[in-house]
């Protein structure tokens, strides 16, 4: 086994580490610390943050890829004398999430089946061997529930397994929560019981009670889904018999990555150009303004569509850039992120330019200039800290917009590669499934739920950040 890194893997881990580093640096300032405390004092904000972290967790789990060694074929090895120290690796990359769901990747059904079904969704023609007559019937699924034979009913089996999953989920979450309370009580030099009491009565500064209940619900739901996925297709199967739950979980990575990596691409450009336009003025300002007005005047979807079309052709003509289909779709994701980044920096740049212009007129900046402080020092010490709230608000606001945009772009045909798991692709397929008789609703439903929760959490969280950080609200 060896670890392999796709481009997006490298980008996302880089982002996570730089975020942690940035947080560590920034949180040393007591002012910033207080602001973040204020943000998390809202019960909604803290539970949204936990939901968002859960999504990030799945995205990161899906961003550790590895290749397994090809099992040495004994007969082949005897004949072909390959050097024994050279291991061959499989062409296919597997992520940690794939490992967790390996039982559901291998066990694909023939076609559609409803959630928790034991039989296929549509009838198929079966020819009876003895009489030679053909008849239509629902075929049983190959990999759903194995132990129904000894007289248990279907719903009882589901109930029993759900109960077991509930117990396991509760146990895991209580373990995690208890260790966290223990750690907190140790930090605050309280004994465990008083800490527990404080939390239970909601006396803590941050609403830990809500946080813990959110965590509990999330863990219980996912244990339930995971536990039952061993005996059922919890969210049904799609056209070629793939597990919908697995597809939805894989799509998390695409959605989250597009949401956060686009910002990574966009931020340096927007910050650099915005600040220099505001601070230096003159012809630099003119050029930058011209640049973003021009880019901005092309309707976003059309510009993205045009760029993606061009990118498609370029990739088709350069097949040497990638070896496997996975690398191909990953490269396409990278390009899509870059294109989204290039088209979306204009709004933030305009805001930053205006704000920099405002700040550079303020007395303390004029004083700094008069003292001969270098431009770079002024930017670092005076301008950047005062721009932080704008950057943060727009990053969080953009996130939900980008997740939604992915779906639309994939529908239009300029989104991620058709082989990439994404909610957009799921919806795209679901469109045809809804026209079937009887309706196949579960793919659409799963994509809907997974997307809705993510975007809702992001929207609510950005609302909270906006109310706390926006200086206009503090008057």
């Amino acid at each position, binding site marked *: 086994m060896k670890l392999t890194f796709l481009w997006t893997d490298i980008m996302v881990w880089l982002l996570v580490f730089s975020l942690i580093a940035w947080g560590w640096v920034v949180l040393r300032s007591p002012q910033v610390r207080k602001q973040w405390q204020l943000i998390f004092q809202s019960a909604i904000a803290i539970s949204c943050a936990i939901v968002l972290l859960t999504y990030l967790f799945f995205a990161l789990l899906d961003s550790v890829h590895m290749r397994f060694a090809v099992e040495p074929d004994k007969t082949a090895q005897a004949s072909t004398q390959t050097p024994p120290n050279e291991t061959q690796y499989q062409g296919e990359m597997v992520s940690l999430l794939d490992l967790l769901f390996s039982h559901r990747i291998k066990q694909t059904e023939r076609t559609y089946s409803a959630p928790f079904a034991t039989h296929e969704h549509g009838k198929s023609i079966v020819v009876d061997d003895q009489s030679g007559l053909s008849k239509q019937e629902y075929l049983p699924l190959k990999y759903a529930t194995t132990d129904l034979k000894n007289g248990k009913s279907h719903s009882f089996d589901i109930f029993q397994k759900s109960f077991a999953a509930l117990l396991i989920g509760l146990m895991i979450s209580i373990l995690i929560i208890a260790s966290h309370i223990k750690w907190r009580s140790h930090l605050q030099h309280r004994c465990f019981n008083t800490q527990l009491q404080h939390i239970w009565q909601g006396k803590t500064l941050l609403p830990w009670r809500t946080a813990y209940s959110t965590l509990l619900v999330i863990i219980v739901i996912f244990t339930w889904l995971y536990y039952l996925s061993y005996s059922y297709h919890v969210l049904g199967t799609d056209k070629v018999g793939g597990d919908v739950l697995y597809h939805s979980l894989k799509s998390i990575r695409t959605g989250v990555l597009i949401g956060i990596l686009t910002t990574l691409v966009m931020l340096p450009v927007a910050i650099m150009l915005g600040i220099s336009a505001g601070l230096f003025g003159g012809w630099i300002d003119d050029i930058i303004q011209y640049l973003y007005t021009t880019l901005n005047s*092309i*309707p976003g979807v059309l510009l993205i569509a*045009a760029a993606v079309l061009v990118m498609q*052709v370029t990739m088709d003509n350069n097949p040497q850039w990638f070896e496997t289909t996975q690398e191909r779709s990953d490269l396409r994701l990278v390009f899509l992120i870059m294109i989204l980044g290039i088209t979306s920096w204009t709004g933030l740049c305009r805001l930053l330019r205006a704000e920099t212009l405002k700040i550079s007129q303020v007395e303390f900046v004029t004083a700094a200039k008069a003292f001969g402080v270098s431009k770079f020092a002024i930017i670092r010490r005076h301008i950047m800290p005062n721009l932080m709230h704008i950057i943060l608000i727009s990053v969080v606001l953009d996130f939900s917009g980008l997740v939604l945009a992915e779906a639309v772009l994939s529908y239009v*045909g300029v989104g991620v590669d058709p082989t990439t798991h994404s909610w957009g692709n799921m919806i795209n397929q679901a469109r045809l499934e809804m026209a079937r008789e009887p309706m196949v609703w579960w793919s*659409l439903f799963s994509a*809907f739920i997974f997307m809705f929760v993510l*975007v809702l959490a992001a*929207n609510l969280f950005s609302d909270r950040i906006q109310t706390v950080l926006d200086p206009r609200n503090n008057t």
Partner: protein
Amino acid sequence: MFAYIIRRLLYAIPILIGVNLITFLLFFMVNTPDDMARAQLGAKQVTPELIQSWKVKRGYDKPLFINIQADGTLATLTQTLFVQESLKLFAFEFGASDAGRDIGSDIKQRMWPSLELALPTFIIALITNISLALLLVLFRGSALDTSMMVIAVMIMSISGLFYIIAGQVVFSKLWHWVPISGFETGWGGIKFIILPVLLGVFAGLGAGVRWYRSIFLEQINQDYVRTARAKGLSELKVLFGHVLRNGMLPILTGVVVVIPTLFMGSLIMESFFGIPGLGSYTIDAINSQDFAIVKAMVFLGAVLYIIGLILTDISYTLFDPRVKLS
């Protein structure tokens, strides 16, 4: 006023040149005509002769900027891709699509169905959003306000695709109220338009109401509103006479700019409901990789947006007495 408009129009020219350069860069330099030909003809049985004939047929066989082979001084500069394919856009000569149809007449024909869908959506959405926002501002801080804001965030958090799919399934497939898709001119076509219009209004409701509400709330804390209340005006009069009127300015900035782009139509609405407008035209072009059409639409979109910007500025001078034309 006239001089002002002229100046604004002149200011638009460098931006349009920029847009033109961007499209040229994308479609002819990042992607050479050879690449396009290869993509269009299919990668397998491509021969240099086939590519050449594909390019000649569409006039893509010229050099980028300077044609040395052409005789005469002027032809050296005009018989190039840049002049023939890119600068002609300024005269709204869109040329022929890669499939051989005339883009200009296609656009003229398809613009009206787009408008037929986009204009009612725009007007109804504007009225609903503003009235709902005013209602919420009137009852600000109440349970109605809080619950409506929660609902607004939820509406915002759902992808437009879900509204369309769910709407088609519920209203067309299950209840048979309206046909699933199609288009017809005249009053008979209203049954095709009504569902996409309502879905469009609903999908934009969350974000719209929140935006207008924040605009009105910003006004309501101003001094002049307090004075108006102190004069003894009723809350309704304050709301309509003062808050709405002063809120009109920020609303104008956001709204007027959109009006010209209504011609472009909505990409997903039109393709879901089978409306032969410019949105579905663009989608079809994207799916068949027709670069000429996409290029034309990018340029057209930018032109319409810039017209919107100019209209915004003009409307400002009309509605805000503080802005003087100078």
